[in-house]
């Protein structure tokens, strides 16, 4: 087995996650799928952020009963936490609007809910 995770695997995973979610956002016409795509995009960005702060062999940055040694960086974790809560808020609001759109038009298709154009 390898000693540590090869290459920049988490970074690549984050980049691919962003790519896949853009695929969903661009090609899927269902509003709920669109919202799921945005949630995935947020996960990708969060994964990228939190893996920036990792130091090989580091422990969690909490001093309570921790073995001596390096600690991983704490600021990216705080940023990720903030970003996760922000995305929860955004998703809640998006879902509310999607429900309202469904109530009004009876459809969740983004091609059908386009009263505003031109």
């Amino acid at each position, binding site marked *: 087995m390898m000693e540590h995770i090869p290459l920049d695997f988490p970074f690549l995973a984050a980049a691919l996650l962003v790519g896949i979610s853009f695929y969903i956002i661009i090609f899927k016409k269902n509003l709920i799928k669109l919202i799921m795509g945005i949630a995935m995009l947020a996960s990708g960005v969060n994964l990228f952020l939190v893996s920036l702060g990792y130091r090989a062999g580091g422990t*969690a940055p*909490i*001093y*309570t*009963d*921790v*073995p*001596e040694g390096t600690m991983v960086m704490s600021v990216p974790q705080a940023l990720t*936490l903030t970003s996760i*809560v922000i995305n929860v808020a955004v998703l*809640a609001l998006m*879902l*509310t609007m999607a*429900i309202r759109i469904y109530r009004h038009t009876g459809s969740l298709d983004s091609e059908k809910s386009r009263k505003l154009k031109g």
Partner: protein
Amino acid sequence: MLTKIVRTVANQLILFIVIFGLYVIVHGHITPGGGFQGGAVIVSGVVMLLAAFSSQELKKSLRERVLTIVESSGALIFIILAFIGIGTVFFYNILVGTPIFGRIPAIGPGPGDIWTGGVIPLMNFAVGLKVIAGLSAVVLALALFSGGEEVEE
């Protein structure tokens, strides 16, 4: 509304969920966790209740108005805790060194002490209050709306 077994189990389980959530909130400054995480744990308990019972049932005990008041007061406590430092600087941790939560732990790894952290435990508590009330209100409102009922003004 699910079967009686589920409802009974949920009724008992909610106590432990709330206790665990409160533990996470209160020990936010010494162990992993904090206001957001603990609040989310408790709200997951609320979601469990929502699944076990109907939203109509839950509406009787969780009033929209009460939730709004609790949420606003959580946010207010938070911002006031930030404001009390303004004698020095906004967000200055004024309680470090005072008897209330003011102890300074031994530098370096060691056992935690609950009376440390200055305003951090209080802020954790305020945020926890806010998250519990806010997310419960959202979940409840969405459930009620799917059942065809709109929120009062």
